[in-house]
């Protein structure tokens, strides 16, 4: 029996070839389809059947699946960044909001997976809050990135976004039968280390999911990937295994992250890991540059490497349909 061995880059040879969920979803086909998503294909799981459509020639959202819950993930807006990789992060953030507003199924809310600001400056947060006011949904749930907690151990982040959260800003909420968990893994980072959740948050998480029915779909969102994408560049979380162990009994777990400024996906048993593109600037693929910093590309290519993620949940189906789309 072949098992997904935790490859960091999507690799067709590492797909799961067993139907673990017994839901009739051909995982080989699903993973193949998700690999095409970056080049303009669109995968929808509805009633256990995988359908794929080409996006070329169609206005985005025309074939958006109608499910029980639709929401959008955006990430890494880095408001305040103004270097060569993108001198206009306000413009690209506005384009992302336009994209959200053009969705044929309006999202119920927006998840922002952090690095909202570039330097944790009040004006930068203000700008993002202001720009979000023109989104079709005013409901926004956020978690901080390391750029959001630079000056005062995250106090100003919490003053702004901490209502209803605990500790460094973690929390959970329910929408249409789906349980959402926002985690913070950018505090107290140790020299040479990766992202970190910490004991207090892990204890909270264990209690938070303990009494949920195991058929409750779970969506976890946090800034730094909760799987080991590329440890050499800090793209991973030291204690995520413990967090994931609390989620193991659940039939459907979707983990949404940011931080790496590119889309990536991995499926491991009942857990789908997904990272979103940035709305500000792209970063190189693991190991393809000396360092993970802002990647300069020709101006006409920039918006093809930035984007939003549309997520749809159909009640009764195990896997959420996750679709990335670029700003152009």
């Amino acid at each position, binding site marked *: 029996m072949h098992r997904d061995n935790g490859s960091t880059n999507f690799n067709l040879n590492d797909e799961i070839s067993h139907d673990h969920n017994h839901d009739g979803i051909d995982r080989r086909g699903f993973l193949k389809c998700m690999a095409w998503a970056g080049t303009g294909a669109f995968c929808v799981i509805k009633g256990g059947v995988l359908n794929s459509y080409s996006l070329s020639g169609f206005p985005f959202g025309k074939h958006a699946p109608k499910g029980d819950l639709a929401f959008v993930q955006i990430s890494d807006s880095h408001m305040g960044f103004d*270097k*060569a*990789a993108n001198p206009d992060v306000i413009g690209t953030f506005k384009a992302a909001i336009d994209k959200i507003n053009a969705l044929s199924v309006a999202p119920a809310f927006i998840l922002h997976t952090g690095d909202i600001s*570039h*330097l*944790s400056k009040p004006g930068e947060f203000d700008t993002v809050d202001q720009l979000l006011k023109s989104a079709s949904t005013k409901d926004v749930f956020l978690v901080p990135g*390391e*750029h959001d907690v*630079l*000056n005062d151990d995250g106090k100003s982040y919490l003053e702004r976004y901490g209502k209803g959260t605990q500790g460094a800003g973690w929390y959970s909420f329910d929408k249409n039968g789906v349980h959402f968990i926002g985690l913070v893994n950018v505090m107290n*980072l*140790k*020299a*040479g*280390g*990766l992202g970190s959740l910490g004991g207090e948050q892990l204890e909270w998480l264990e209690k938070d999911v303990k009494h949920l029915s195991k058929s409750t779909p779970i969506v976890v969102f946090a800034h730094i990937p909760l799987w080991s994408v590329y440890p*050499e*560049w*800090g793209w991973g979380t030291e204690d995520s295994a413990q967090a994931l162990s609390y989620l193991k009994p659940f039939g459907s777990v979707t983990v949404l992250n940011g931080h790496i400024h590119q889309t990536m996906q991995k499926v491991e048993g009942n857990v789908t890991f997904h990272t979103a593109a940035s709305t500000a600037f792209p970063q190189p693929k693991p190991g393809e540059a*000396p*360092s*993970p*910093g*802002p990647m300069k590309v020709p101006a006409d290519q920039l918006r093809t490497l930035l984007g939003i993620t549309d997520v749809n949940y159909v009640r009764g189906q195990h896997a959420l349909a996750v679709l990335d789309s670029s700003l152009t």
Partner: protein
Amino acid sequence: MKTRTSILAIAILSAAVSLTINPRTFAATPDDKSASEVAIKIDNFSFSPATITVPVGTTVRWTNRDDIPHTVVSDDNSIKSKPLDTDETFTYTFTKPGTYSYFCSIHPKMTAKVVVQ
């Protein structure tokens, strides 16, 4: 012959005089700030040089040449810079000997050390 020798003598004398008038040009004294300040460059998600050894009393100046902000934080948190954007600097004067391991608190994989003797 005598003229050439005289010219040579004058030249040597002038050089000797300028040496005494401008000691700074030829030798740095312990009070000279530029001699006891050491530069570390931050670029491409790394500190360079990654390890430096300096005498007690040295001021180290970190300059961020990267296009992303970085910090300088010692492992024990006793040295802590504010976030440095591109071209911003941070200085610290090491008054006690020891090995000071530090890292960037935003990108903790960036590590380096200053050895003070």
